[in-house]
């Protein structure tokens, strides 16, 4: 019997690791080498390095190579596709076309968006749909005009989840800070003081703070949350990106798994791969 195949599209590597932790609860393990991935699915692995962009121009050698993450349990495979911003729809479309060429059927598609600077989850969804409908030659009909968080059985089974909980403006950092509150309470509080002290430090010039955008703006709020999480990660796993800490530390263990927002994501994943 062919394995169940799910495409799970996320916006960045840290989202991918967060979802992977939830997948681990279902017995999914990452397959990291080409030889561990069945021939049928290997077409999803990019062939060229250095990569070229849409216009055929070279992408810098320093840019990350867009390789999906492959996860397997006893009866299913989940391929986590990392998009990001306007590339998300294109990344999913490309994977769907590739599945058609490779000759395997996709049973479910989950799209995890965030809405750092968006007003509502519906707007984040609509922005994704606007990009996705531009894509041509798709082998399946996938209409994502559905309520965020709700799955439809088409097939393929389709669902779209807007972080942090399909209701509030935010991103993965909002979930991580809630997890941090129950898993690393003292560290979280110290990291907040550190961040605020550091950002208020007169040593920092306007150029140093340009990354945060206009003071009081949405971008600044979003970046400050990221700085807060990163400050915690800098202690838990120094010198590496936050996704490593998400994978290796206790962010998504014990009481964190009982948090309503985490449970909402978990339910979405459960229903998607059911």
């Amino acid at each position: 019997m062919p394995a169940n195949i799910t495409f799970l599209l996320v916006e960045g590597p840290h989202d991918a690791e967060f979802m992977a932790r939830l997948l681990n609860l279902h017995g999914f393990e990452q397959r990291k080498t080409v030889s561990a991935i069945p021939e049928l699915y290997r077409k999803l692995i990019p062939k060229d390095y250095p990569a070229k962009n849409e216009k055929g121009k070279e992408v810098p050698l320093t840019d990350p190579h867009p390789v999906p993450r492959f996860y397997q349990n006893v009866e299913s495979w989940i391929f986590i596709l990392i998009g990001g911003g306007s590339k998300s729809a294109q990344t999913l479309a490309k994977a769907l076309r590739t599945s058609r060429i490779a000759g395997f059927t996709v049973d479910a598609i989950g799209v995890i968006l965030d809405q750092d600077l968006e007003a509502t989850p519906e707007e984040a969804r609509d922005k994704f749909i606007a990009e996705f409908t531009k894509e041509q030659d798709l082998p399946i009909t996938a209409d994502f005009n559905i309520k965020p968080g709700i799955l439809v059985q088409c097939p393929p089974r389709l669902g779209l989840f807007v972080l942090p909980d399909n209701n509030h403006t935010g991103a993965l950092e909002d979930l991580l800070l809630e997890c941090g509150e129950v898993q690393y309470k003292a560290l979280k509080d110290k990291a907040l003081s550190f961040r605020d002290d550091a950002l208020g430090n007169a040593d920092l010039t306007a150029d140093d703070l340009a990354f945060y955008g206009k003071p009081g703006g949405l971008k600044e709020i979003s970046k400050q949350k990221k700085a807060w999480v990163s400050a915690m990660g800098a202690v838990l796993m120094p010198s590496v990106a936050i996704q490593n800490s998400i994978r290796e530390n206790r962010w998504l263990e014990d009481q964190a798994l009982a948090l309503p927002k985490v449970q909402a994501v978990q339910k979405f994943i459960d229903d998607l791969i059911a």
Partner: protein
Amino acid sequence: MNLLVGKNNSGKTSVLEALAIASNPTSATQWIDVGRERELKSARTPLLEVLGWFFPHDHPRENGYDGTAAMKVTLTDGRAVDIRAEYREFRQVEMTPEPEDGSDFVDEEPSEYAATLEIWLKNDPIGSLLEELPVIHEFSGRSFKDVGPGSRLVPCQLVTPVSHRTSRQLLAGIDQILEDRMKPEVIRLLQLLAPDVEDIEIRSPQGRGAVIHLYHSKIGHVPLAVEGDGMRRALGFASACVQARGGMLLLDEVETALHPEALSGVFRFLVEICREQRVQLFVSTHSLEAVDAMLASVGDDVSDLVAYHLPHRDSGQDVYRLGGESIRSMRSEGGVDLR
């Protein structure tokens, strides 16, 4: 610009052959010429084997073979032409007269197969055929009777991976290139492979026959037959393209004999010359370098480019068509394998 991709045995060559036949479907010579392009002259498959395998086979071929094939061709002016062909093999028995001396009589000589090929053409734009009557060609094991010149719908040239080893079409094409004063463009193409090539000439060494020569600045005149496969193949493309003017150029396994680094230049030439000559290009390939070279050669406007992925014939899947934008997207960001 049409790309045909898919694994071995998915039928890419069959599609090109079907297109080549459809360009002049009622000509027996066209059928045979297309079949003969599969191999070198020295390895010729018997005539009926060549013909019979144009038709679908769903069981082992025993005691003769019958087959039917149909195709609908829509021309760019909107006219649709229906082509239907029926092929029938039968035993041709030669009777030996009964011996007068009353000795043992064997009433049949060992027989050989013969065949008929009947072709119906509906909505023939040239109007050369009666609607309800087929053209009937007869084939024996060694010869055939071609009734009439055929009904050429569009000019067409098929270039197979072995075409460059024969000079059947090449001479006529080079002649056309010289007549059309296209020599400078073709020399530039050849210089991509051998920078010291300066000229193409048809010469008659020792006053016998016409032989294509290339002039190299370092070593002088060199007969084409001793040039490398890449040079012969590139020249074959140019030659076939001018002969396909206003029609179709079919290149099977385009990357054969060409170094991947030369593909970009060769494709740029092909795209340019095909646009100039109003030729629709069909290319089959197993090479991602060829796909990328094709993409690069069409520039920013990919609307003229399309790819057809042919699934394995037992997969139960249909052919999958990808437009230029989709091909570009598939090959960007590390490029997935669309073969």
